[in-house]
């Protein structure tokens, strides 16, 4: 034990004043350094709020709790994007089951549906999230492994190819729902498979289970310019998502449950996209399924899609 200097000789019954001061100075600077190094946490403005953390599952919320959740989301959207959205929780309608039909004879592969969807559903622009993937397929095959989605010619359609847009098929037997460990995704009575973005834990099992590559993951906080936000929102539909949750096509739930057509259908310049209530025998989709040749993508996997491809001839 080295001898201590006479000035700092320990007090007979405890610490010397100098020792105390030195120790407390070291302790204080240590604590200050820890506080300073935690400073980046103050920039974490998008942390989950207590309200969001304590929010119940969609199906367990009472109307009052749902209204509180909607109000919280309205507040958050206003804070982040500077506008108050028309946010609602639209419920499925009785006697309605949605079906989509897409005319492969007419589609020219212009990708307008892709971008109308992005604009309608508040998808992240940077990094990019798109629900619809248009495959350029060589004539004479339905082998999607021969398809390409990165074509960029001067004009479409190109000779010798046809175009097959793929998006969520809203399956009647959805593998994505079955694998979800927290029941954050489920099938609604009108056939739309929805996601509660506040309940999703981001495990991406559903993405792996989907045979149509229809689900997308928010790897980063979505980047949407303030002037590009669509204020017409629905809880299970196009309200802004957070980093770390899944999203996918929901047949524009905020439009279709209000009786309107989806955005991708309205923008299609060739009228290849058809949508309606399959339980209505006179709806467009009912007539198509009765009178046209219909093709189901990956029929052999047994997902029973509500999305059909058809041909004119």
């Amino acid at each position, binding site marked *: 034990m080295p001898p201590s200097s006479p000035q700092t000789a320990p007090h007979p019954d405890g610490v010397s004043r100098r*020792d105390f001061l030195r120790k407390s100075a070291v302790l204080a600077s*240590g604590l200050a350094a820890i506080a300073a190094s935690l400073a980046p946490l103050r920039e974490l403005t998008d942390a989950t709020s207590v309200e969001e953390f304590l929010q119940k599952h969609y199906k367990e919320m009472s109307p009052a709790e749902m209204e509180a959740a909607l109000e919280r989301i309205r507040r958050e959207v206003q804070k982040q994007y500077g506008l108050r959205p028309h946010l609602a929780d639209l419920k499925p309608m009785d006697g309605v089951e949605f079906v989509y039909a897409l005319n492969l004879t007419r589609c020219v592969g212009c990708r307008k549906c892709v971008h109308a969807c992005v604009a309608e559903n508040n998808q992240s622009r940077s990094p990019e999230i798109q629900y619809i993937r248009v495959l350029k397929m060589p004539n004479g095959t339905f082998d999607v492994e021969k398809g390409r989605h990165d074509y960029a010619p001067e004009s479409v359609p190109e000779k010798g190819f046809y175009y097959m847009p793929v998006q969520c098929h809203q399956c009647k037997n959805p593998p994505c729902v079955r694998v979800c460990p927290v029941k954050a995704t489920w099938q609604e009575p009108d056939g739309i498979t929805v996601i509660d973005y506040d309940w999703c834990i981001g495990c991406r099992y559903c993405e792996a289970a989907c045979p149509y590559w229809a689900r997308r993951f928010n790897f980063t906080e979505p980047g949407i310019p303030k002037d590009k936000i669509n204020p017409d929102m629905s809880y299970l539909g196009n309200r802004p998502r957070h980093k770390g949750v899944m999203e996918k096509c929901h047949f524009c739930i905020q439009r279709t449950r209000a009786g309107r057509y989806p955005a991708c259908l309205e923008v299609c310049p060739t009228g290849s996209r058809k949508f309606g209530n399959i339980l209505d025998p006179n709806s467009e989709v009912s007539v198509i399924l009765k009178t046209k040749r219909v093709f189901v993508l990956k029929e052999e996997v047994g997902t029973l899609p509500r999305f059909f491809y058809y041909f004119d001839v």
Partner: protein
Amino acid sequence: MTNDSKSNWTLAALAAGFLGLAGAFAFTKPGAGFAPAPIPPVDPQFTNTATVRMSAAELARTGGDVSGLDCLACHDKGKTLVLKVDAANHAILPKEHEDLVMRHGRNDRNDNCFNCHDPVQLDLLVTRDGRKLKLTDSTLLCGNCHGPTLRDWEAGIHGRTSGHWDRARGPIERQDCVSCHNPHSPAFPEIKPAPGPHPLHPGAPALSGESKGP
């Protein structure tokens, strides 16, 4: 070394370490290491819902320039027009109508103006069975030859729709044949495709290719 001085040294080292960390955080933004390539905003032309062309009815409704539809500005009223044809029996367009692209039907077989236009009343259309139709009713004229397509159009499964699928909530909006098809060259025109998906890491191998897909 005493236990006291040892703990003093440990505390001092920890403090120095944390101060260094604080300094590092002060000079670097968290998460700044990954910067995805900026993606330019999509041209608004790819999200607008306009048709590729305008029918006479649409032109009149939206207050567009309909002077091109006024036949009597040049032609005499009531005078029967005669079509000039070349040796191969193809129509010879007068120079006032040279801008028309005559490509209706395979092998340009339907290039006789008066298959559809009335040779006397020029602002009317005439069907194969002699009924006369206004320019704004051209859908019925097209259906004269394209029966199955007209049947599909009437059922809503050919051509563009917008508005409401639920007729109880609102109307459906339909388009005439000539809102998308040029009657003189009806094949749907080739158009410029919207930009494809941007890879998260440019330069990395494409997600899809001849061997990969969804």
